[in-house]
């Protein structure tokens, strides 16, 4: 019989903050697109005699913004950068620079956080080819660590989703590579197993599920679960033991004598609001959570939501911003900042208000919205279109025409396939050039169909 084993899960989230430069030198932090070993200098290749510059302030500020939103305690004493020693071909100096926590404590999704600190990424080592690309060497990372208090993979998913939401809201993450995650999981009766370097939220969930199965199977059979470090294969969706054991390693942590400790408490941090508070109040006032999350992931969308909601209601506004507005932006590959520019928001809010109150049909609303995105001023058109609907006589006439030219459809409706009425509504709308409310057309059609 399978034991119902309690799980203890912890996460180490290595976030790539959006920065121009590397952590300790002025090289570009672009490692995704640049040709191998082109964004390098004496510092990030560990040349003899090179010295690190002071920690990248954009990264430090991003860490402080996160810490503040997550109610963490920001370090009152100066924060030292540390050296973590181990030999590996991707590490030019054979020590990695990491740091003391810049903040500790705090909570995310109700789970206790341990700390957040800055560090530098190592380079990329291709073991098969035996080559190293040092473009990534020295790229800034923020590591957010939870206490091992998560109980199951869905907790991990929730924590990671919220982390991503926070990063997006604060606009401090690289969208193309937001983070990589190390996770540890232990079941009652077994040792702690760490799974390193997982690149996606779904990967973390899958790795934890796999480990749960693997470890409970061992325990069921009376076998020990040993403390070890494994890696996750994203393609096979399985975890494997690491080729290099590092459990017994002593990193000989030491303050980096070349870097002056940073008084993080004295650094000014912009207050951009709290996305979780916004999310909570949106949902409490009736917005759908899925839509609300899509909106909170961007401060321009939050701005748009507030404008739209003030002229309509939260449910309509969340749907309008998350689906219609975002749909138009995505279709045109435009940044959300577009909606905030050049008086567009006033027009968008007017369209939304007319639409939500029924003064504008779906089709007219969509068409006006598209015009705004195409750069036209629609204020005049909005005034002439608003409230202009076909009268009852024309509705009736159009309904009769559509039914008589589609007798087979009308027959199917009468025999009980009531859903076909949508097809007829569509045809009527076309004839009416969208100047009608769908519900009025349905009424007219039903009356004719008996």
């Amino acid at each position, binding site marked *: 019989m399978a034991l119902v084993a309690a799980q203890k899960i912890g996460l180490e989230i290595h976030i790539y903050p959006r920065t121009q430069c590397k952590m300790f030198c002025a090289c570009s932090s672009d490692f995704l697109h640049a040709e191998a070993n082109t964004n390098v200098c004496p510092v990030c290749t560990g*040349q003899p005699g090179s010295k690190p*510059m*002071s920690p990248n302030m954009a990264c430090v500020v991003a860490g402080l913004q996160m810490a503040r939103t997550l109610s963490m305690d920001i370090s009152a004493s100066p924060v030292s950068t540390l050296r973590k*020693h181990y030999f590996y071909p991707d590490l030019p100096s*054979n020590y990695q620079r990491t740091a003391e926590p810049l903040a500790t404590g705090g909570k995310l999704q109700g789970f206790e956080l341990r700390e957040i600190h800055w560090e530098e990424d190592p380079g990329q080592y291709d073991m098969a080819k035996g080559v190293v690309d040092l473009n990534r060497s020295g790229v800034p990372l923020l590591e957010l660590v939870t206490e091992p208090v998560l109980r199951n993979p869905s907790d991990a998913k929730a924590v990671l989703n919220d982390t991503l939401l926070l990063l997006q809201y604060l606009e401090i993450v690289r969208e193309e590579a937001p983070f990589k995650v190390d996770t540890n999981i232990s079941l009652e009766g077994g040792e702690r197993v760490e799974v390193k370097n997982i690149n996606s939220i779904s990967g973390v969930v899958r790795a934890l599920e796999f480990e749960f199965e693997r470890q409970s199977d061992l325990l069921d059979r009376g076998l020990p679960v040993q403390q070890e470090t494994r890696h996750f294969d994203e393609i096979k969706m399985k975890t494997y033991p690491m080729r290099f054991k590092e459990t017994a390693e*002593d990193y*000989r942590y030491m303050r980096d004598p070349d870097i*002056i400790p940073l008084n993080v408490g004295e650094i000014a941090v912009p207050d951009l609001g709290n996305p979780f508070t916004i999310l909570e109040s949106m949902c409490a006032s009736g917005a759908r959570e899925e839509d609300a999350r899509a909106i909170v992931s961007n401060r321009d969308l939050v701005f748009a939501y507030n404008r739209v909601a003030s002229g309509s209601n939260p449910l309509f506004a969340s749907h309008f911003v998350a689906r219609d507005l975002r749909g138009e932006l995505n279709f045109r590959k435009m940044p959300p900042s577009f909606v905030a520019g050049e008086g567009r928001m006033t027009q968008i809010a007017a369209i939304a208000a007319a639409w939500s109150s029924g003064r504008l049909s779906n089709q007219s609303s969509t068409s006006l919205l598209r015009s705004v995105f195409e750069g036209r001023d629609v204020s005049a058109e909005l005034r002439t279109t608003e409230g202009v609907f076909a009268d009852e006589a024309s509705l009736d006439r159009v309904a009769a025409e559509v039914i008589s030219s589609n007798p087979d459809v009308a027959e199917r409706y009468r025999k009980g396939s009531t859903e076909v009425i949508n097809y007829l509504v569509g045809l009527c709308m076309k004839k009416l050039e969208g100047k009608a409310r769908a519900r009025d057309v349905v009424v007219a059609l039903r009356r004719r169909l008996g």
Partner: protein
Amino acid sequence: MAGDREGIRRRFEERLLLSRKSSGNSFITLASTPGGTASGQLSGKLAGIKDNIAVKGMRMTCGSRILENYMAPYDATVVERLTHSGAVVLGKNNMDEFACGSSGENSAFGATGNPLLPGTVSGGSSSGSAASVGEGLVDFSIGSDTGGSIRCPAAYCGVIGLKPTYGRVSRYGLADLSMSLEGPAPVAAWGGEELLASVMDCISGFDRRDQSTASARKTECVRQLDSFDPSGLNIAVPENALLHCTPQVVAAFEHALSFMGDAGATVERVQLKSLDVALSAYYLIMYSEFASAMQRYDGLKFGTRGEGYTVEESILNARSLLGPEVRRRIMIGTYVTSAETRGAWYERALAARDHVSSELNDMLKSHDLLAMPTMPSAPYRLGERINDPLLMYASDILTVPANLAGVPAGSMPMGPGLGFQLVAPRNGDESILAAFRYFNRRGWHW
């Protein structure tokens, strides 16, 4: 100007020839051309650069086989500043491997000879820097000083060397021995105080590539060079420091001291109690930082590649090229910073350092200068102490306190192979050079 340039080139060629012929072995690599044409304060001055300081496009060996073929891809800040002021690099000076040593015998490229007292050690680790100046091959040299590495060879070779205030001269481009203790340090011949002052004014000051210079002020050594007046000065002499010295050293020191006393300085005999722990604190901290700094030499990214089927094997083989003293220091440093032992050694050493630093800094608040011999004995015969590391380490006792406290200290000749050391408060670099200048101008000679 063209004539100037021609003169500079001719002098460069002449010294190059002398350096090639010299048996002193004070250079590892010689330059092929005089390089740039900048004119400035140091126009045409020929410089030796210690081979742990990067000169772009020149080999930088750190006196080690592991970097035998390493070409520096950039200029150290000091080199950049010197060449911009017109100085001409003649070559890269011999040194103890990775600056590990105080005799100049630990170089993979052979021991450096002492031009003043042939057959004896030149001192280290900036052996070639002091020896090439002493032999007259260059006008000045830039070495480095971690625990006495410029003052020791300056004393043994009869020249003047200055270890600047920590953080006043950028370390960017200086290969690490012990990062919290060291910095580049210039050396020039006796009588070359003005040149040394110009060099200091040129290389000192803020450098965004080295955070230790964050609050550094440029020195005003030239401006203050003639401002030294011994009358009314209060000079501390730690008596317990003299207990470590040979009678010859003590006699020469008292003689030099009386020169200042006669000129009106008050000499106060004091006890530097923390001297007892200074050497242990220094060595433990240096070992620890050194072991960390040396991690990068694995032969994979630069330096001599080790043979091997696996990464581990090739790293091991590359690192086997390091000499015995370097390996000894890496092993001890790794041990004292390991998780199990760091509390017993490394952290106690850091506490002892604070102790030395505060006692010395306090002493320099109540006194203008502190005077001591530079080295406790005259230079010994080549090979005499090479197998006794503890005896070798012990000779650093009078130089390490200044490094632990981050204060400036200089050495000038007070006898054959004997150095007179002055230690000043932080940012008092100027007064040390001014004092040396005073001795010289007033006809002091041993």
